[in-house]
C-alpha cells in the first residue's frame, strides 16, 4: 500500500515537473524560465526523496540537500547575471 502511495506521489510530481518544464519552454521571458528552473530543482528534491522512500534507502539524502544548495546558487547566478551581467564583480 505504502509503495503505491509513493508511486502516486511520484506520478503527481511528474505532472508537476511537466508543468514546470512547460513554463520553462514557454517562457516567455528569461525570469520566467529561471523561475521555472528553480522550481524544477525543488521538484527534483521531491523526486529524489520519493525515490528514497520507494527504495527504502536513505542514501539519497545528500543528493537532495545538494540539489537544494546548487539550485539556489544557480538561480542566484542567473538572476545576478540578468541584473548586472557580471556575476562576480
Amino acid at each position, binding site marked *: *500500500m*505504502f509503495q503505491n*502511495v*509513493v508511486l*502516486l*506521489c511520484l506520478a*503527481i*510530481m511528474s*505532472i*508537476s*515537473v511537466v*508543468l*514546470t518544464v*512547460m*513554463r520553462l519552454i514557454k517562457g516567455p*521571458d*528569461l*525570469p*520566467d524560465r*529561471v*523561475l*521555472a528552473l*528553480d*522550481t524544477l530543482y*525543488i*521538484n527534483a*528534491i*521531491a523526486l529524489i*526523496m*520519493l525515490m*528514497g*522512500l520507494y527504495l*527504502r534507502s*536513505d542514501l539519497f*539524502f545528500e543528493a*537532495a*540537500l545538494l540539489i*537544494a*544548495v546548487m539550485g*539556489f546558487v544557480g*538561480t*542566484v547566478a542567473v*538572476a*545576478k547575471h*540578468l*541584473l548586472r551581467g557580471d556575476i562576480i564583480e
Partner: protein
Amino acid sequence: MDTPQWLEWLVAALILVGSLFALVGSIGLWKLPDFFMRLHGPTKATTLGVGALVIGSMLFFSAQREGISLHEVLITIFLFMTAPVSANLLAKAAMHQRLKRTERTRGEPWKQ
C-alpha cells in the same frame, strides 16, 4: 525493521500532501498570468510541499533505523532560508527587465 502501520499512514499522508502542494506550485507557475504572480507559486507552495515531503521521509527513516533521522530537516530549513532570496533576486530581475504585468496590478515596480 518493520514500520508500524500507523506511521506508514502518517508518512503516506504527509508525502501525499507535500506532493499536492508541490503540484499546486507548479500549476500556479503554469497558470498565473504574469511573472510577479507566478513567483508566488513556487516560492511558497512548492517549498512547503517539499517541506512536508521531507518530514514524511524523516519520520519514515526514523522508524526504519535505530534512533531518529532528523537530518532531512536540514533540507527544509535550507529551502526556507533560500527561497525568499531567490524570489527577491528574480523579482529584481523581472523589474529590471520591465516585464509586463497584468493590467489589474496596482502599484508600480521600482526602477532597477
